[in-house]
């Protein structure tokens, strides 16, 4: 109480009434969350407008005689003829470590009931992407803990990898698994007092989703101890189109704070299809000319300027990274639709999820043929490169042979062996939700598969044997796991150790 009184006294002591000229405007019409304002002649694009009573707006259309602005909260209370003021400030959002573990709206206001966020740091929601000079090539891996991805479609820190697929194919699960794995790595590094490992902080942006879905993600992250390394920006289906439009930019601004301070951040945009729909709705209400599928002409620029803000900065510029995992929902597998093709062309690769694979029980339902990572392989560890190098080719051959084998039963021994090997690799790639593997365990699994360890195991038992093998290695040869994790390559000594442990396991089994 005393501090409040002291604050008031201090503010009063510092306050000197002064005459300053302000630019005002008058609301001429308001509807659908959009206000048309006369006046505000010198306002800038994306400048905040003060509607009074704590209501703010964003100037989005600067016309000859009026300004089109979206009202960011309580649009119902804005009246025709009301006076508004320009603030001279661009939209900003609170940032910093204090945001970790919090669920906020796109304006940075807490939604989790945990009280105000104690931070003075702020970042502009819209900001130009880092330039060419400050960037460097992606060089460090971002371990998702999902074997299929880390082996075949590796993601690097600073990369933009699209997750695309129909509804209910496990898109969000992949993103949440990736966040959980970052939290696991951060936690392990903290416990070991490891200062060389760069932690990855995550930002999960929910756009136009059901409140229940967002609550599910929050619970999953909390249960797996990942919430304290994550910021959740939520603009749910019940929020206005303007809030949904702002959400990914706010999430990026929060992620950029970590990047600017030399740290690594991961941003998940779930999903940009709904973001495009929200932007279309807002543009139509603002009476902007519409183009294909009624989307405005700058829909490509909307997503390209957002995703270009992900970067891997050079050491001279702090060395921070911002990795993006945008999600796109397709309709009946149509990747050639307008928004999917736009985002595919912007990103550095895509993870394509298929409904058919999902229903066959292959989860993650990743289609190896269409999925690609354009820059991530440069960031893969040597150990992973060595064991996963052939996997994509082997799987491609397996899918081809599998199709071929459907037409006849007389197959030569080599073809049968290829098919059997492919089936086992596919089985190994199946992974349960919220259960990411550490990199060293991924390497051991693939190394064992390459050595034919699973050759005599019935296909349906592959995962069971894998679990037993990993448990055996964890119990008997913890040093091997540690060596792979530290050296990140398969030295002759490690290979020898792996051979020994496999032989030991086989003898016991």
């Amino acid at each position, binding site marked *: 109480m005393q501090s409040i009184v002291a604050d008031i006294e201090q503010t009063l002591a510092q306050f000197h009434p002064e005459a300053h000229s302000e630019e*005002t405007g008058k609301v001429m019409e308001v509807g659908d969350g959009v206000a048309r304002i*006369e*006046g505000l002649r010198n306002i800038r694009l994306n400048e905040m407008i003060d509607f009074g009573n704590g209501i703010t707006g964003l100037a989005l259309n600067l016309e000859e005689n009026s300004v089109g602005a979206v009202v960011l909260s309580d649009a119902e209370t804005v009246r025709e003829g009301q006076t508004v003021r320009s603030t001279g400030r661009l939209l900003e959002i609170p940032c910093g470590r204090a945001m970790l573990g919090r669920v906020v709206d796109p304006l940075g206001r807490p939604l989790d009931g945990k009280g105000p966020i104690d931070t003075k740091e702020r970042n502009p929601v819209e900001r130009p992407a880092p330039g060419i000079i400050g960037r460097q090539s992606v060089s460090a891996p971002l371990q998702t803990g999902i074997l299929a991805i880390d082996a075949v479609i590796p993601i690097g820190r600073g990369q933009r990898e699209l997750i695309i697929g129909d509804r209910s194919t496990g898109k969000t699960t992949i993103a949440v698994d990736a966040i959980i794995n970052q939290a696991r790595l951060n936690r392990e590094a903290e416990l070991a007092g490891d200062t060389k490992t760069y932690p990855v902080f995550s930002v999960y942006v929910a756009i136009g989703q059901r409140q229940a879905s967002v609550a599910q993600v929050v619970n999953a992250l909390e249960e797996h101890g990942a919430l304290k390394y994550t910021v959740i920006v939520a603009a749910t289906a019940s929020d206005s189109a303007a809030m949904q439009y702002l959400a990914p930019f706010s999430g990026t601004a929060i992620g950029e704070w970590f990047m600017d301070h030399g740290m690594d951040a991961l941003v998940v945009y779930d999903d940009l299809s709904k973001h495009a729909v929200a932007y279309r709705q807002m543009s139509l209400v603002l009476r902007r000319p519409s183009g294909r599928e009624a989307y405005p002409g700058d829909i490509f620029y909307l997503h390209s300027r957002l995703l270009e803000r992900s970067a891997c900065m050079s050491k001279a510029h702090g060395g921070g990274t911002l990795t993006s995992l945008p999600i796109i929902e397709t309709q009946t597998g149509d990747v050639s639709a307008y928004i999917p093709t736009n985002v595919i062309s912007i990103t550095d690769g895509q993870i394509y999820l298929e409904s058919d694979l999902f229903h066959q029980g292959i989860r993650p339902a990743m289609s190896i043929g269409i999925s690609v990572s354009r820059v991530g392989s440069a960031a893969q560890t040597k150990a992973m490169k060595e064991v996963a190098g052939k996997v994509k080719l082997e799987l491609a051959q397996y899918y081809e042979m599998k199709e071929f084998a459907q037409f006849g039963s007389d197959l030569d021994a080599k073809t049968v062996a290829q098919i059997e090997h492919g089936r086992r690799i596919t089985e190994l790639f199946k992974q349960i939700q919220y259960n990411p593997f550490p990199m060293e365990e991924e390497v051991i699994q693939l190394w064992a598969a390459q050595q034919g360890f699973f050759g005599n195991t019935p296909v349906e038992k592959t995962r069971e044997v894998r679990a037993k093998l990993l448990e055996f290695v964890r119990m008997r040869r913890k040093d091997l796991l540690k060596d792979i994790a530290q050296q990140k390559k398969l030295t002759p000594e490690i290979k020898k150790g792996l051979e020994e442990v496999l032989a030991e396991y086989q003898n016991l089994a």
Partner: protein
Amino acid sequence: MKLTRQHQRNARLLWQSVSVNGIPDANRIREAVQTVRQFEGRSAEAVLRCFVQRLEVYIRANRIGVVSADQLSAQQREQLSGLFRGTEAAEAGINFSVDPAVIGGLRVEKGYQVTDLTIARQLEILQSRLLEK
């Protein structure tokens, strides 16, 4: 009546033709309106409507208003009018109004440019500074 982009464009051209150094001239406006009215049809009417809208916006953006909590004396009004004497906006006259909500002080408005020295505004600024803390 639907006002198309073409109507808006024609109204803009008409506006440019009546303006001298960016300021509309009353005689030219009268002449322009008379000329357009000679053309019959909806198009001319639409262009005139757009033109009138522009004129209204211009007037609103240039009129001078003074708001005070209490009625100003004739001497005070004269003093304030003197500040704007010679300006184009002052020719249209200054609109003096009373609004008790401002509590005290003056608010001077030239179009949408506002210089607010009222007690109500100072309290508003004080409130926002306290809330920022």
